[in-house]
């Protein structure tokens, strides 16, 4: 009956919880005009499914549209929204407020990257270091010229490198790395893992070239297997594994 339906919907609205709210502290810093970082706090409502990116965009939409943030896909595949959330590098779109177990969420730009503004950092050094490691298949043969055939690769061959190909260049690993905290010349876990991605690919013949590049005083041996890069990687790339497997070639554990 209609009166039963009204009673049920009234009960449901009593049971449905009101959205909770949290304090979102956003780091604000414009290197062109400000002398140092400052934190601005906003009260933001959140549900069980609200991500940190949603919360920041809520602030942009309702309180302060000048907050600078880089984001795009909202689904952890573009790597744009990397930032430090409650002291640990994470993707804002991939981090739910509910998993932080805190009523205060502090968002800051990633460490070890130059700050462009607020939460946006510069990726020039990471990309240029990545390019130095020759992130492409090096093979004197070609699949393209007439008379040649395609490179063959079995599913087992693909398993050897596919996890390292998942890298979305978000930079969280470089931000978490303890060596990157002090060493400006260190290649970094992202580039080293990508070097292994190509060395492990059976189509590639550039292993010796890449090993020569990383065998440097600020190369692979400045990694001390702290593992923080793998702890923060959102895509399961496990750069620490790639780096140690790559180092095995230089130490003689693998040939």
């Amino acid at each position, binding site marked *: 009956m209609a009166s039963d339906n009204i009673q049920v919907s009234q009960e449901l609205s009593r049971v449905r919880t009101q959205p909770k709210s949290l304090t979102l502290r956003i780091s604000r810093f414009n*290197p062109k005009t400000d002398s140092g970082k400052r934190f601005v706090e906003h009260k933001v409502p959140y549900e069980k499914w609200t991500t940190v990116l949603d919360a920041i965009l809520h602030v942009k939409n309702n309180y302060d549209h000048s907050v600078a943030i880089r984001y795009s896909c909202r689904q952890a595949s573009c790597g744009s929204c990397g930032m430090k959330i409650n*002291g*640990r590098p994470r993707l804002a779109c991939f981090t739910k407020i509910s998993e932080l177990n805190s009523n205060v969420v502090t968002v800051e*730009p990633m*460490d*070890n*990257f*130059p*700050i462009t503004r607020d939460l946006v*950092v*510069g990726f020039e*050094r990471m990309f240029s270091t990545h390019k130095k490691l020759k992130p492409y298949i090096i093979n004197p043969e070609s699949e393209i010229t007439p008379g040649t055939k395609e490179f063959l690769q079995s599913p087992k061959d693909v*398993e*050897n*490198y*596919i*996890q*390292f190909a*998942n890298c979305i260049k978000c930079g969280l690993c470089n931000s*978490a790395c*303890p*060596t*990157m*905290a*002090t060493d*400006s010349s260190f290649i970094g876990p992202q580039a080293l893992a990508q070097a292994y991605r190509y060395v*492990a690919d059976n189509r590639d013949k550039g292993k010796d070239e890449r090993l020569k590049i990383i065998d440097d005083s600020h190369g692979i041996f400045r*990694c*001390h*297997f*702290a*593992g*923080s890069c*793998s*702890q923060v*990687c*959102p*895509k*399961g*790339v*496990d750069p*620490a*594994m*790639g780096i*140690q*497997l790559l*180092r*095995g070639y230089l*130490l003689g*554990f*693998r040939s």
Partner: protein
Amino acid sequence: MSKVDENKKGIKGMADPRRYGIERVAYLLMRLSGLGLLAYFVAHIYETSSILQGKVGWDEFLEITQTTEGHIILAIVIGMSVFHTVNGIRVMLGEGGVGVGRPARPDYPYTAQSQNSRHKIAIYSAIVLAALAMMYGLAVMFGE
């Protein structure tokens, strides 16, 4: 061209082991124990050179080192060497690719294979063995 501020976290970032698990703690302890052992090594080389001054010189140095403070310092050195050795073996094997897992297609929740229980157990074992060695050392030194 002006230098870009890399926003590096610096020594504080390198030395802060919070939020990253026991592996990061082991990294910090490895550095601290290494520096501590180097300092002790240099002091030990200097200290033992007193034997060239004969029994008088040697006994003078023994008076400084065979004290409560000296024994406590030596116990700390024992702990540092045991931790540095055991963890060093773990790091050497890990850095050669031993015990870090095999590459595989990653799937949600994307747990890193290299951060596995084998390495965590090795780190905790290093800490426990260091503690046991320190206790044994203290028992020997203060037991006499």
